[in-house]
């Protein structure tokens, strides 16, 4: 029974990892940018929910719509910054911008909210008893949101004209450009979408997450693990990898010492790097 509980818990948290990693795989695969601030945008989403509750008394789900609009604006500006630096300085310029944004967001959150952990107060969607323990409604809502977003992105990439452009740019930007695809605009869109997804993930998981300014770095590492295991640029692989990593983390935390939850993704990443599985689990 204990193992089933751990697996279920792992699947629920893995769905969140999949959502965070899905955005990161887009930006790495299509935008070809290692946005170090990806996890920090998840943290910004979490604090958006805190801000909405503190200032307006609204729950995170009501804050989601305005949050998406706000982060879409931020994302467009950030994508433009990445694009401009990339054009002028190259890969290292983008890396510096990502790192600087990560530090600025962390610093701002710490200056505004201090480094004391926060939670969303007095908000629940009830719970469902499964395998002898309670799965909270907010966790189910987050998992449902993840699957809905993953399905939406999958359809968008597979069936739409814009999705074909994304795939073409991910495959070969030069050839895509020669076929008339506006490569910079497509890359900007991928970066912006990934940032909005990261912030959305933060807002959706806020009801059951302990929130602190540096949580973004943890999410960045999880996202990287998901991308390496799932394959760069592969959103379906990211979802599968997220679920797998969630289960492994949960089992490691349940049966081994607590620090194994941190070490498990690291060992997975190193193993995948060493065996050189370029396309991840879906290969």
């Amino acid at each position, binding site marked *: 029974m204990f193992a089933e509980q751990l697996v279920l818990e792992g699947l629920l948290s893995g769905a969140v990892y999949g959502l965070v990693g899905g955005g990161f795989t887009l930006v*790495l695969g299509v935008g070809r940018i*290692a946005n*170090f601030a990806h996890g920090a945008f998840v943290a910004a989403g979490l604090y958006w929910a805190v801000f909405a509750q503190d200032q307006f008394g609204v729950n995170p789900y009501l804050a989601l719509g305005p949050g998406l609009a706000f982060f879409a604006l931020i994302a467009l500006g950030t994508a433009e*910054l990445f694009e401009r*630096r990339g*054009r*002028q*300085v*190259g*890969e*290292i*310029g983008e*890396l*510096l*911008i990502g*790192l*600087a*944004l*990560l*530090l*600025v967001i*962390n*610093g*701002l959150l*710490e*200056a*505004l909210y*201090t*480094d004391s952990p926060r939670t969303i107060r007095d908000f629940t969607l009830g719970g469902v008893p499964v395998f002898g323990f309670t799965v909270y409604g907010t966790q189910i809502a987050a998992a449902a949101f993840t699957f809905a977003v993953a399905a939406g992105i999958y359809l968008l990439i597979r069936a739409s004209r814009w999705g074909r452009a994304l795939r073409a740019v991910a495959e070969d930007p030069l050839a895509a450009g020669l076929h008339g695809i506006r490569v910079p605009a497509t890359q900007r869109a991928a970066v912006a979408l990934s940032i909005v997804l990261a912030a959305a993930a933060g807002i959706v998981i806020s009801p059951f997450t302990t929130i602190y*300014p*540096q949580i973004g*770095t*943890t999410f*960045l*590492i999880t996202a*990287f*693990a998901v991308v390496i295991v799932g394959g760069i640029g592969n959103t379906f692989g990211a979802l599968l990898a997220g679920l797998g990593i969630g289960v492994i983390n949960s089992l490691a935390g349940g049966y081994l*010492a*607590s*620090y194994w939850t*941190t*070490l498990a*993704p*690291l060992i997975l*990443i*190193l193993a995948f*790097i*060493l065996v*050189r599985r370029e396309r991840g689990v879906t290969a």
Partner: protein
Amino acid sequence: MSAAQLGRRWPWIGLLCFFAAAWFALGAVSASELSLLVLAFYYGLAGSSFSFLYGTVGIFSLAQPVFLAVGGYTGVYLYTQYGISPWLSILISMALAALLALPMGFLALFRGGTIMTALVTLIVAEAVPPILAAIKPLGGSVGLYLNLQPGSNLAAMQFSGALPFARLFLLGNVAVIGFFMLFKRSRFGLWAAASRDSPAAAGACGVPVLRIRLAIFVGSSMIAALAGLVYAQYNLLVNADLFLGATTLFQVVVVALVGGAARPWGALVGAILVTELSYYLTQAASGRPGISPLTFAGVFLVIAILAPRGLSGTWERWATARIRRGPRRPAAAATVPGPPSAGAPDRAAQAEPTADVEREHRR
């Protein structure tokens, strides 16, 4: 001495003058300013380990704090458990850092690419605190503390004030800057530059690219271990937070990049600027928490946007452009072709990863 000889030697003369002036000036500053300078010199030395790695072979490693922790833990552990002097522990910690750097460097460089290396090293750095917390002989999450000796004890590297530590860090900075300047002009340095600029071409010419990168990764880890050991002695304690805390993890890289990571002086310039700025802004904000990391981040963002080569890199580029342009002359005379400027520095020595990427991008 001819003007050309003097021109070649002026960086060394400048370094020696700086060392002498700073050595004596440190004796005259106030206690609070001295502790600030210890911090700046520590970041300068730690940042130099990153600069050495990034400036010579273009490896963007975020694992330098791990080697700082190796140095810190080795010195404190050996002294508290076996009474081994920290001076001797410097060598041991450097050897341990080198041993750890070999497999870590291999993993980080295995797949190649700046992004992959940066992410892998970041993950390694993030994995270390929980491991340290689980090792009981190293004090778990609390860490290890040094017993305070009365007065100064040279053998135990404990002093009654901050001045000896400031001078020790100053000496370390000057030594590393000098080594960096020598290295860039050595045969090994030129191989490293070739490996950085075009690994494929360097490999085709017989340069052992992976071995050079690994060797420099190991060398930079040893510099970091030295900085970590002295800093732990200064603080009389060592724990994961001191080197690998959420805010301290990136500061080593930030100071180097703000100052100009490809330049020998870059890390020290960046460390002094950012540390001083951070201190005075925190004072201005009445000690409000979060201002210090925000200052580091803000300065870094501005530099990343406006001057990705860092302060010293941008200044050097501006000065080089001025030398090449030469003195202002009438329009008619400017059209007459002349010999290249004697003051123009060697391009191979001035090259840096950012400029190479830029050239590649334009091509």
